[in-house]
């Protein structure tokens, strides 16, 4: 019931927030109140809470609770940061709608329902902010169409695969001899695997379908990135994992060629995404290409059969999205604080704003990981299972590219200050010399608080970035009820907190 309540609350709340965009304070009040309520409702999702509805079933799970809590918290943090930075509520409303629709899509027992809802939510979360941020500019229609088409393509491809799976020639209707697979069914399974992998690659922004993701991250405020390329994409992939588990992974067809193609795309994403994040100068591109790299690791989970890879994939996608939400928050606040997005203009940023330095250090820790952390073990497991021989070492090294591209940002942060950073005196907290606006007694504490918030909005936004980074690190470690990892006799050992989707 909590999932339904979450949707029932988030959808109208997000809609009202979007419609009130012209009245900024009212929009933020409604949006932030809705986001807080969504966090509470997400935390109350129970694994035993199953509701039959409209001929199907909406069910909770521990994994869904983890994802929904992190998603709702991220939405709340970005909403607060946007409010502090003075950006219009262009992202908060659509993000809440995406959260509500996405939660129902994940909770639905049917993969077709999940893909359909998630595609609808992604379209709204991606395109509506474009109209609000870029409305009236020449770039808006083109940017919107470039975001809309990949989302549609991913949704349509996955729905075709699901329709085939449920048809008379799908794996559920075809009776075969145990241990043997009908060649026609094997071909169908291979095509279905490729279709779902292609849909996931497009949705995640993996190479070669990365261009739209890079353009979107470049053109939109960083707060618009996590709802589309982060949480929404993660939910889509989790539904894909569930469908593949009950269709392709259940069969004994080897599908070596198909899995090889997916591994090739995944490896290309890991290596090229890492290189692109290294060579680009602006922080939005670093964010975008680091997401492309994470997408490559996720595709490795799709290419590999078995429950171990699926569980590792679930841990990975959840941790990667949460950590990159922290990076997006850092990008958003850094750009707003210093007025530049080029690394050459951002030299010395951490000296000017140590809070932002702490945020990026936490992001680095979450992105690279340490042995025992869920994300670290999941990444190592996926590469070991999917990539053969010496290539695995190369891919593993490439997967640690965040050490370099985030480390470079950190090193630049303690360098001598560039001019935009030196002139950004508002980046540091002001305890005393802020001015209380209005008439009357200036010492009134009630009026001093808003004045203090206004005077310190950039440092407070930096605190928001730290909170987003802590959220990412928590999920990367395996907190918030995420799956646990132990290197026992059986190697990677997933717990039973999976989001399971039936065909």
């Amino acid at each position, binding site marked *: 019931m909590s999932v339904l309540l979450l949707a029932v609350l988030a959808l109208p709340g997000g809609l009202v927030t979007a419609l009130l965009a012209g009245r900024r304070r009212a929009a933020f009040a409604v949006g932030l109140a809705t986001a807080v309520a969504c966090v509470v409702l997400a935390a109350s999702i129970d694994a035993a809470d199953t509701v039959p*509805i*409209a*001929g*199907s079933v*909406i069910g909770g799970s521990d994994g869904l609770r983890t994802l929904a809590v992190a998603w709702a918290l991220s939405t709340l943090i970005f909403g607060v940061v946007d409010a502090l930075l003075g950006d219009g509520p262009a992202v908060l409303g659509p993000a809440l709608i995406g959260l509500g*629709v996405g939660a129902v*899509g994940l909770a*639905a027992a*049917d993969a*077709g*329902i999940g893909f*359909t*809802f998630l*595609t*609808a*939510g992604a*379209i*709204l979360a*991606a*395109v*509506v902010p*474009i*109209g609000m941020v*870029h*409305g*009236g*500019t*020449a770039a*808006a*229609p083109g940017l*919107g*169409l470039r975001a*809309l*088409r990949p989302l*549609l*393509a991913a*949704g*349509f491809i996955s*729905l*075709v695969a*699901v*329709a*085939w799976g*449920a*048809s*008379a*020639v*799908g794996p559920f*209707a075809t*009776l075969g001899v145990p241990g043997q697979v009908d060649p026609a069914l094997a071909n169908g399974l291979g095509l279905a695997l490729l279709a779902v992998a292609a849909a996931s690659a497009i949705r995640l922004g993996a190479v070669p379908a990365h261009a739209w993701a890079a353009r979107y991250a470049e053109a939109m405020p960083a707060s618009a990135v996590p709802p589309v390329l982060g949480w929404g994409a993660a939910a889509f992939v989790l539904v894909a994992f569930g469908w593949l588990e009950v269709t392709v992974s259940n069969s004994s067809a080897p599908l070596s060629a198909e899995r090889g193609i997916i591994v090739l795309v995944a490896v290309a994403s890991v290596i090229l995404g890492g290189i692109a994040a290294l060579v680009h100068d602006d922080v939005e591109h670093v964010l975008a290409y680091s997401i492309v790299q994470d997408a490559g690791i996720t595709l490795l989970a799709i290419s590999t059969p078995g429950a171990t890879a699926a569980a590792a994939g679930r841990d990975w996608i959840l941790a990667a999205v949460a950590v990159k939400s922290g990076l997006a928050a850092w990008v958003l606040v850094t750009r707003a604080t210093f007025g530049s997005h080029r690394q050459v203009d951002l030299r010395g940023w951490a000296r000017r704003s140590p809070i932002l330095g702490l945020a990026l250090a936490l992001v680095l820790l979450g992105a690279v990981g340490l042995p025992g952390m869920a994300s670290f073990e999941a990444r190592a497991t996926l590469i070991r299972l999917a990539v053969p021989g010496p290539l695995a070492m190369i891919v593993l090294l490439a997967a640690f590219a965040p050490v370099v591209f985030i480390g470079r940002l950190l090193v630049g942060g303690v360098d001598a200050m560039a001019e935009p950073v030196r002139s950004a005196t508002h980046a540091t907290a002001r305890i005393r010399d802020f001015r209380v606006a209005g008439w009357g007694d200036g010492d009134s504490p009630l009026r001093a608080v808003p004045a203090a918030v206004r005077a310190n909005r950039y440092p407070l936004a930096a605190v928001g970035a730290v909170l987003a980074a802590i959220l990412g690190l928590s999920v990367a470690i395996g907190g918030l009820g995420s799956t646990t990892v132990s290197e026992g006799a059986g190697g990677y050992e997933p717990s039973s907190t999976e989001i399971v989707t039936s065909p």
Partner: protein
Amino acid sequence: MNPILAGVALAVTVGAVLAISARESRAGLVGLAIALAAAPFLAAPIPNVSTLAMRVIGAALAAYLVRAAVATGPGLPARPLSEPTRGGSQLGWPAEGLLAIGAWIVGVAVSAQLEVLSPAGSGIPPRDVFGLLTPEALATGAGLASIVVGLVATFAARGAVRTTIGALILSQGLLLVRIGVAGAPSDLEQLAGVALLLAIAIAGGVLLGAEGQRGADDSGTEASPRLSGSGRMNPGDR
């Protein structure tokens, strides 16, 4: 063959071809409305009244959202005589119609094969053409035709109007094919389909609004002749 269902399937296909190939946006929107409103009836058994009403109202709302966005935007810039076409398919309705007929044949053939292979099916292919036109075959045929005509408009059209109309036709086609090959969907799945159509319509409305604002900005800087809603040039612009 159920003649009523066959008529509905024909209406869906004609609406899809009209929506994609019409050069005037109003004619395209009429085709879109026909295709979206007729498609929910293309199922056997017909869904219960509440589900049917939800789908029809959702389809009408989707079509209305696109229409409202088109109507409130400024007119399209007038087409110079050197340009062959502006709105609608570059192929024209006869070619789009032939593509739809081809897709119908493929869809019916696929459905017939699925019927033979289905565990619940007879295992014997029908002897005549009318026997082939089962409700599933009609849904598959109309759906595949919608997909074929909507595909290019969705992924290759320049403007937001054609892309939105194409995406709506394509989505509707996909939902029909899903019904045709995998049986009747649950009510929640139909609700998800409505949500998808509305999301596309809203996104299209937003993009049309952005195009309209850009057009309004452009008109302030250059005196380009504009078309009225009917596609004809305004008298004052001649």
